[in-house]
């Protein structure tokens, strides 16, 4: 900007977080002398209502056109202060934040050092602020319909909420029926309701809903576009013929679920070797009234008299690369033990566990009830399952007794954990989503944004984000639904303004930026050999700008001039 800027600088005490290590008044007095600074103030909590009021008031009274807030990390409150200055008529991009908390007061002990550094940080922000340019705020229209990938409990519930709220929704399901893995369960704890009956209620409601389109035997194969305006290609397999559909949607909910852990990866338990060793899901089929035995527990043609359940198979196990807890196994094991005890009252049921995680509402009470039916819970992670005569022996240390025990068994049920579906990486790649260390899809913030992703308009529901029971899955699916519906209801979405800008004269078309862009916002025009940016997809991360060797991409709001001005100040104080 050409004319002389009028900058207001606001220094926050953050209670004592900053003021304990930084002499706030000294910083204020120093900053007031800097070129372009029209007013400098300090306040206990700038983020508080009165703190923000101070800024708003000054913008009017002093005719400020740039604001520097020196407080905590911009991650925390940049948006807060942007909104504040917008309220006073300034462009939101006429703000800079100097982080004097995380990067200063919290890492320094000496007050003089802290104060000197705070001065430098604020001065550099002032230098940048003078060069900031207003950016246009952009809004794009929204296609008011949802796309749900995965028709398990999570997908069905998310779709149902959208349909019920009046928005058309399409569910893409790989299998030939809705309901997913939960439909394969026999009963649900703690009330022992039939899983198919229970879940049939929501599946049925979706199937008959006029606003829901259900594509079975289908997969998502391609997605382009951005929040509010996605275009998806779905491939449907029907008796050998493959059809591609194009779908448009304003938001996408990913609910592709989990895979059960492959018990063969724990060979010491003899799964696949002994017919008496089965996984929990196989056991569900066995006790299901729709199963081959009509729900009777029969192994090798007879009713087992000694049943051992082994918990944490493939969970809490770094040796198989799954350090996490699968969250559901403790309770489904309790339920299965209960089912055995009910149908075979004479059977001796033992559960071998490490910790019993009965964490949900009514779970501990159910665990109490199950134990009281006469089930032995013994603490110990078994070492091996062996054959001895015509029976199996489960060898473990009983860590309460501090003794080794060999438990005879004619049925061993492995409580296999949850692992990310094999296709999760594919989905992540297709939608440019990230996976967390455990391989499940990564949410935007584990606490406060549990269903959002780093990509606007794409949300997570159910076990694709991490192991969950049905209750938590349903809650999370509904949560994803409302996040998806907010743009539908509003009709418009705001998109980032501080996006990249390609200078075609400088661009050599090398494509480095295209490879590095996490949002798929850059595409090479092969005819011109120049890079083209889709600013709606661009999140302003700056990776392209940093990568470009010829400086042909500028990240608006972080232009080289602005950044170098900041660097120069830091180097000269």
């Amino acid at each position, binding site marked *: 900007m050409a004319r002389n800027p009028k900058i207001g600088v606001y220094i926050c005490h953050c209670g004592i977080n900053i003021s304990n290590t930084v002499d706030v008044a000294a910083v204020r007095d120093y900053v007031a002398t800097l070129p372009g600074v029209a007013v400098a103030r300090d306040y206990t909590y700038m983020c508080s209502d009165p703190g923000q009021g101070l800024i708003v008031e000054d913008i009017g009274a002093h005719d400020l056109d740039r604001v520097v807030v020196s407080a905590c990390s911009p991650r925390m409150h940049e948006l807060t202060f942007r909104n504040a200055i917008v309220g006073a008529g300034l462009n939101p991009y006429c703000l800079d934040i100097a982080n004097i908390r995380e990067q200063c007061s919290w890492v320094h002990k000496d007050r003089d050092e802290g104060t000197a550094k705070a001065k430098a940080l604020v001065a550099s922000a002032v230098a940048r602020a003078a060069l900031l340019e207003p950016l246009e705020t952009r809004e794009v229209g929204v296609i008011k319909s949802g796309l749900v990938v995965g028709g398990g409990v999570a997908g069905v519930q998310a779709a149902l909420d959208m349909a019920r709220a009046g928005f058309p929704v399409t569910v893409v399901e790989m299998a030939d029926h809705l309901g997913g893995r939960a439909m394969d369960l026999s009963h649900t704890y703690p009330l022992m309701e039939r899983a198919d009956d229970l879940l049939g209620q929501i599946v049925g409601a979706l199937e008959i809903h006029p606003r829901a389109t259900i594509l079975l035997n289908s997969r998502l194969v391609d997605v382009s576009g951005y929040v509010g305006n996605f275009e998806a290609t779905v491939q449907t397999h029907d008796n050998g013929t493959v059809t591609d559909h194009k779908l448009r949607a304003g938001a996408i909910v990913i609910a592709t679920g989990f895979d059960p852990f492959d018990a063969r990866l724990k060979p010491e338990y003899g799964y696949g070797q002994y017919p008496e060793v089965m996984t929990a899901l196989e056991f569900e089929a066995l006790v299901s009234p729709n199963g081959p035995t009509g729900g009777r527990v029969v192994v090798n043609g007879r009713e087992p008299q000694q049943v051992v359940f082994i918990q944490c198979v493939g969970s809490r196990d770094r040796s198989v690369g799954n350090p996490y807890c699968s969250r559901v196994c403790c309770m489904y094991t309790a339920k299965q033990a209960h089912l055995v005890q009910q149908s075979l009252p004479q059977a001796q049921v033992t559960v071998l566990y490490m910790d019993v995680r009965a964490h949900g509402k009514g779970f501990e009470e159910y665990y*109490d009830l199950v*134990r009281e039916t006469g089930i032995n819970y013994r603490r110990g992670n078994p070492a091996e399952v062996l054959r001895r005569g015509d029976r199996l022996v489960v060898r473990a240390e009983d860590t309460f007794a501090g003794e080794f*025990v060999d438990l005879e068994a004619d049925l061993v049920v492995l409580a296999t954990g949850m692992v990310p579906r094999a296709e999760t990486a594919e989905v992540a790649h297709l939608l440019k989503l990230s996976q967390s260390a455990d391989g499940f899809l990564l949410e935007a913030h584990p606490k406060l944004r549990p269903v959002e992703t780093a990509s606007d308009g794409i949300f997570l529901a159910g076990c694709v984000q991490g192991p969950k029971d049905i209750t938590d899955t349903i809650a999370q699916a509904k949560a994803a639904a409302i996040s998806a519906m907010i743009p539908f209801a509003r009709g418009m979405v705001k998109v980032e303004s501080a996006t990249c800008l390609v200078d075609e004269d400088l661009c050599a078309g090398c494509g480095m930026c295209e490879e590095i862009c996490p949002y798929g916002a850059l595409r090479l025009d092969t005819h011109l050999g120049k890079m083209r940016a889709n600013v709606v997809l661009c999140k302003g991360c700056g990776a392209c700008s940093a990568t470009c060797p010829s400086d042909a991409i500028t990240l608006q709001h972080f232009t080289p001039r602005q950044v170098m001005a900041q660097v120069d100040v830091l180097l000269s104080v």
Partner: protein
Amino acid sequence: MEATELRTFAIDNHLFRCIQCGKCAASCPMGFKTILNPRKLVYQALVAGEFDPKAHQELWDCTTCFTCSIRCPKEVDPGNMVIQLRSLLVQDGRIPGTLTTALKSIFERGNPLVMPARDRGAWVGDLDVKHLDDGADVFYFVCCTTSYDMRAQKVAQALVKLFNVAGVDFGILGEAERCCGSEVRRLGEQGEDSLFESLVEEWGEEMADYSYQRMVTTSPHCYDVFKHHYPMNGREVLHYTQYLAQLIQDGKLQFTNKIERRVTYHDPCYLGKQNGVYDEPRAVLKALPGLKLVEMDRSREKSLCCEGGGGRVWVEDPNPEKKLAAWRIDEALGVGAEVIATACPFCMQMLEDAVRTAGAQDKIKVLDVAELAAEAL
């Protein structure tokens, strides 16, 4: 016990509720000095194929303070399990010698101390005490130990003094009083056809014939067993500390003599932990002029058992280690108490023994709350 029998035992006693948290074991005052471990006993009952109570002589170490059961977060009641297992030993006649004598004496003489029944009222001497035959507002149940033990008799005498000053209409049964059976029950003589059951039947019937409004007991053990296990036909059962506190509150008892002493109060398990009576004994002590009440660290819900309950008061010291009561005296001395007050004849006996063993008679006295109150009249 065989496997099936053991399983039935475990289910009947709700042992499957147990999650092996260890709270019972760590709560057990004896656990720190003997091998008694309720958690392990429960676990063996759950997972061992068989269980032989004979191999567990430590069952007799239990003082039946029931801290284990009171604190169990899953309501397992390991204390009762111990009693159940004792029952099995009793059925087999496997019972320590001194206890056999006590049980036999109760059966034959109505008291565990092998004393003649006719001497039971001797402690009254020339005090103004009437027999319950004519009916009274209060049935004062004296207790075997209090009736016969020279030291304990003083407590009854003090109480009579207090009752008379307060103008209480009370009576005793004298020779006709019999053992309440609390310890019999705790030794395992419970359930069908047990000594305790016959006691309740006969003795309960006998008591029902008398005319009274409320029963006041000297011993918390009697208080506990009458309150919870006898048919009282709607009549109230009070421990004397509760009754005294009531009399004080109603203004019927006033104290004039100053007791210029530092006193600490030892909560008897059967009064405190098992029946929640913590405040009344303290209210009585606080009402005594000049008395300085100091609390030991382990007081109220955390009070340490004196080791007298569950029949252990009649057992010759089987453990070479220090008695719990001795720890208790150390603690009382630690807070600078000149008097350790209690409200239970067993506690009194155990604590006095401990004071003697420690040779601390010059430093600390063991007194009953009633004695202190009477002294303050």
